[in-house]
C-alpha cells in the first residue's frame, strides 16, 4: 500500500506527532511505501533542528531525520504554515524540505490512502 501522511500537530504538546511517526515507521517496516509525509499547522514545528528535549526523552525531530535517511522518506513542511511560525530553511533538520500546499493535495492524489494525524 502507498500512503500519504499528514501531521497537523507539534511535537511533545500533542501525541498526534508521535502517532504519525510510529505509524509511518511501522508501515515502512512492513514493506509499505510512504509517498510523502506532509507537515501542516503546528506540525511544521516537528522540523525544527534546534529542538532539544531532555536526554531521557525521545527526540522527535531526530527520529524523523533518521527515518528519512533509512528509507528516503519525503518530509515536506508547508511553506505558508512554516513562515507564520518562524520556521525557515536555515533551521530545518536534515531530511526535511519546505514546499507548498500543492504537495499535500498531490499526496492525496498519488497515495492510495491519506492518513491524517491531528486533533
Amino acid at each position, binding site marked *: 500500500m502507498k500512503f500519504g501522511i499528514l501531521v497537523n500537530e507539534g511535537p511533545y504538546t500533542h501525541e498526534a506527532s508521535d502517532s504519525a511517526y510510529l505509524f509511518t515507521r511501522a508501515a515502512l517496516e512492513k514493506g509499505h511505501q510512504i509517498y510523502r509525509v506532509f507537515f501542516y499547522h503546528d506540525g511544521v514545528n516537528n522540523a525544527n533542528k534546534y529542538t532539544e528535549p531532555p536526554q531521557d526523552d525521545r527526540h522527535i525531530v531526530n527520529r524523523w531525520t533518521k527515518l528519512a535517511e533509512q528509507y528516503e522518506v519525503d518530509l515536506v513542511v508547508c511553506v505558508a504554515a512554516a513562515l507564520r511560525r518562524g520556521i525557515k530553511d536555515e533551521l530545518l533538520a536534515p531530511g526535511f524540505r519546505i514546499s507548498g500546499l*500543492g504537495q499535500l493535495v498531490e499526496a*492525496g*492524489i498519488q497515495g492510495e490512502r491519506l492518513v491524517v494525524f*491531528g486533533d
Partner: protein
Amino acid sequence: MSEADQQDEEGGGVVKKFMFVNRKAPYGTIYALEGLEVVLISAAFDQDVSLAFVDDGVYQLVKGQQTKGIEAKNFSPAYRALEGYDIEKLYVEREALEARGLAEEDLLVDVQLMSSAELGELMAAQDVVIGF
C-alpha cells in the same frame, strides 16, 4: 515547465473525491483559516472537491462576522469566492446548525443541509477526507 511535468505534478489526470471537513469555530484556533488555504490550493488540481461543515465548524459560515475586537483577519468573505474556484459542493450538518440556534438564512453562502447520517454516507464515498 513542460506540459508533461505539469500533468505529473498535478496528478496526471487522476480525479479523486476530496472532502474537507471543517469542525472548528473560525477564530479560536487556526484550523479553519489554514484549512481554507488547502481548499483553495486544491482547486488548482482539478479534483472533485467538497466541503463539509460540522460541529462548531458551522460558525465559519455565519454572516456578519466582526473580528476587529480580537485583531484577527475576517476571512469569511473567502467562502463566497469558492464558487469562482468551481468549488460549489458545500454541505452543512443540519443537527449542528440547529443545536447552535442557527438556520440556513444565517449563512453567507448557499449550502446543502444534510443530516449527520447522510453526511456520514457521503464521507464513506470519498477517496480523501481531511478534517480541520
